């Protein structure tokens, strides 16, 4: 591990949260990790599920706190992320730096913004009593890189043909955002079946979020890309990896199909005993972000499986670690010996 800057920043964040967040402090102390705060900051992490179980917050003043909730249907199983203005601003700035650099979007000459989303799923999911919805937050967060916001789906999750017509008539650049499953199922596939081609000159399609839904259709990232290119020849179809606990510091896919770490985020993979994997080995993904200050989301152990292939030597020429997310850990529900019933 070399990433000295990242780790130093993470070490600082660890002790910041250790002093301010009782939950984080108990976890670090109980896990016997107090000595690692600065010495081995990479070896301190919170399981992502913790944010579903307890309120973790590192702020005293609560007036500018916003609650961000992961998208989900049931009330109990949603992550609760508390952001203050400072954290939100730095997250938005980081996102801006990553997006403008990786997608070459010119913030002074913004492209038209289209979302592959059903307006109904968004309605009533804005700032409300229960908190800010992550799906909404992502759509909103990416909206700063485009002008206007048009939904490409109607309330029945069908293609909104008017909106599509608008898109086809755009003269300038177009920036489309959607969640991976929706992009494939409701957009690309429909375009193919309706035999519609979009021949705009410059279309960026950014998509992210669970692959789980697509797994049962046997669709990989490269297949999605291929079918997108079939129907939108001038498309730049880019996948990103990010999580609600680390809004802002997302990892964007390069031309070679690898995700890269950047100034804000770092990835570690761990084996089944939580020891750090070598490059090329499959492991449980841990993600570090230098951004979260109002909640201890700086080091999260996810349930994703990934492979880090190397550092600074990706064929695309970009630096950082380059990696792929290859799936999710199988669902477990371990209660004891004689109990798992499926």
């Amino acid at each position: 591990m070399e990433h000295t800057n990242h780790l130093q920043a993470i070490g600082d964040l660890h002790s910041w949260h250790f002093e301010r967040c009782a939950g984080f402090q108990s976890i670090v102390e109980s896990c016997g990790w107090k000595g690692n705060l600065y010495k081995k900051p990479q070896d301190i992490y919170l399981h992502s599920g913790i944010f579903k179980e307890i309120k973790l917050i590192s702020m005293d003043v609560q007036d500018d706190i916003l609650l961000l909730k992961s998208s989900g249907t049931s009330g109990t199983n949603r992550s609760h992320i508390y952001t203050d203005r400072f954290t939100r601003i730095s997250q938005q700035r980081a996102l801006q730096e990553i997006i403008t650099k990786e997608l070459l979007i010119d913030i002074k000459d913004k492209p038209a913004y289209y979302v592959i989303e059903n307006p109904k799923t968004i309605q009533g999911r804005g700032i409300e009593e229960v908190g800010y919805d992550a799906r909404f937050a992502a759509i909103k967060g990416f909206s700063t890189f485009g002008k206007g916001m048009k939904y490409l789906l109607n309330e029945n999750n069908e293609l909104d043909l008017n909106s599509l017509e608008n898109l086809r008539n755009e003269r300038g650049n177009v920036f489309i955002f959607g969640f991976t499953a929706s992009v494939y199922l409701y957009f690309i596939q429909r375009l193919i079946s309706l035999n519609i081609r979009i021949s705009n000159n410059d279309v960026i399609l950014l998509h992210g979020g669970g692959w789980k839904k697509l797994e049962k259709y046997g669709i990989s990232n490269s297949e999605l890309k291929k079918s997108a290119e079939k129907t939108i020849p001038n498309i730049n179809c880019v996948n990103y990896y990010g999580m609600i606990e680390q809004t802002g510091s997302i990892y964007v896919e390069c031309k070679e199909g690898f995700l890269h770490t950047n100034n804000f985020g770092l990835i570690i993979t761990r084996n089944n005993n939580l020891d750090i994997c070598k490059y090329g080995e499959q492991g449980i993904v841990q993600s570090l972000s230098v951004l979260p200050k109002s909640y201890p989301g700086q080091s999260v152990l996810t349930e994703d499986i990934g492979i880090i292939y190397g550092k600074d030597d990706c064929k695309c020429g970009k630096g950082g670690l380059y990696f792929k997310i290859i799936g999710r850990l199988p669902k477990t529900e371990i209660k004891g010996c004689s109990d798992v019933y499926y």
Partner: protein
Amino acid sequence: MYITSKSQVKEIIDQVSEDYCINISKRLESLRLLSKSLSKLSIKLRSNELLALVRFINEAIDQSEEWFQRAQNMVLPRGSVIHIPSSNITLMAIYSWLPSYIAGNMNYIRLSRRIDEEYIKNVISEIDLAIGVDESRRQIFYSGKVEDEITAITSKVADARIIWGDNETINMIKSKYPTNASIEINFKTRYSASLIDSRFYLNSDEDSKERLSRQYMNDSLLLSFNACSSPHYTFWLGSDSINIKAQKDFICKIKKLTSMQDIATGAITTENIRKLQTSAAIDNLDDKVLEIIRGKGVIKVSSKRNKRLREDLLKGFIYYIDAKDLNELSNIFPHRIQTLTYIGIINSKVINQFLESLGERAPDRFVPTGEGLKFSLCWDGQNFLESLTRKVCVT
């Protein structure tokens, strides 16, 4: 016989008589055949799991032979038995089936869809070969899409039902699949513990220490410390300084054994760490984790604090408990311990005294470390053969 369609099970219920059954010596004879063929299969598939099953079958043959000889009255099967085994141990279905087959019953065994189908089919076809065509039509393994319907049908007709599950699972099955079975056996979640004589361990040579830690891990690794047979508590007998020394050495050896690439068990590891961290944040533990093994925190608790150990905290942790001697241990020894494994020469008189002092807290089994997973006809204090047969009483 492995079936996947509803019509097959209906046909079997209609046509196969549950009363028919070959005699006990023939049943045991067919199990001897099965043991041989599975032993071959275990070598072919390099399966330790199968090897353990073979050992269990052999043990079962011996124990049952003895039991039937001792049973003075006429012993008859119950009739038909439905088994709903847990799905986290691949061969659980076979373990549940075997004693009931020995008892002479017709059996329906639900197989979880999570279990590798090809693998279990292999084992079932060996069973079919060993027990013969007629008998195999009375030993029905089922899974797949029809599993739900078949469980419903067979629950209605069965004379006995065996469920391996926690309260939630058991209640769910009870309400979803009503039964007229006169006997219901439910195996609830239990915990196990290990007892280590620290001085004995420290005085062992390096090879023995490694063997002992490997045996301990054999008891634990199935489900990464979550199986009922894996030691959730480890009791260390000796003075404080001796115990600390022994634990240090032991943990070091165990850590070497646990690290490997196996993403499927990674899911259990992350689930373990999630539970550990949740408990840490919610319960504000006084205890600090010594080490994290497979996501489980090893926590040291002194027996001197004289507090009963909290069962609900077992989820994220493995407890190391120091005790000066068995007397001291007896004070805090927890309830619901299924298997207590041991390391060290502990003389039988002392053992008996200790078990007696535990009273109703005495564990079901007291076996050497490494044998925690060894199945026995007696499980959870229940003798399968007793429960799955009926005796004719003549007065």
